[in-house]
């Protein structure tokens, strides 16, 4: 049977397609236990994490300007 981590990895792609980055990062964290050594996985997770951080930062700045 499929592992929960394997399912989480593919769920991450589905939410990524919908541009739901917080959910994607959540799924990638769940998948980490199995794919932590996979380079593609690490790039995807770090890019998502960075993008979220940047978006949060921009959102914070915009709120300050209002």
């Amino acid at each position, binding site marked *: *049977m*499929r592992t929960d981590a394997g399912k989480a990895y*593919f769920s991450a*792609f*589905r939410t*990524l397609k919908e541009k739901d980055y917080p959910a994607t990062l959540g799924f990638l964290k769940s998948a980490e236990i199995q794919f932590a050594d996979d380079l593609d996985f690490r790039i*995807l997770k770090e890019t*998502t994490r960075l*993008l979220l951080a940047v978006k949060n930062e921009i959102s914070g700045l915009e709120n300050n300007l209002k």
Partner: protein
Amino acid sequence: MESFLTQIVVSQSRQVEFSKGLDALDEITRDSLKGRRINSRLGNWFAKNNNVPEDERLRESEILAIAGMLGQIKTGLDVSDPESRKLADEIDRWHDKGIIPRRKLILKMKPSEEEPGISEKFAELLNKEAEYFSKDLDNKKHLLSLLDDVLKSAEAKEDTIYIHLAGSIIYFLKMRGYKVGPFVKRLKEIEGNKLESPHAY
């Protein structure tokens, strides 16, 4: 970064679609192991994924995953039923087309000096039962429903662990005042059939 992630999604779109099929087969496998009827859903899955064995992009890990799940499902199919027989034949057809589980590597070594005694074997059985049972606890089902699932598994599977687990649950319920007569009757019938089987114990 957003554009980069979009490109990843595009490049993985086939994988994502395929993973949905794997998830569906995984659900079918889990229900099959619980003794639930899966014929209709498995038939639909085969219809939807008919071209999978010929797909040259199929990765080895995907082949192994599908083959493993189909193998597990096949063990639970009652081949005396024509519909189940047809599904078992379809699983064989996939096997012939290369959807084959990895052969397990068996390392042979001298038997240890101390064979596990009956107490260790009993402890091992309890551990296996706890592992099986814990998978269903998250569903928040009543113990009577879980007992029904276990009895269905006992009926469908060769492994006699389900008979022992069912007996254990029945006794637990009895000690707490539940009426367990119908379950005892079902268990006795299943046990009688299994003991007649050449694979019993």
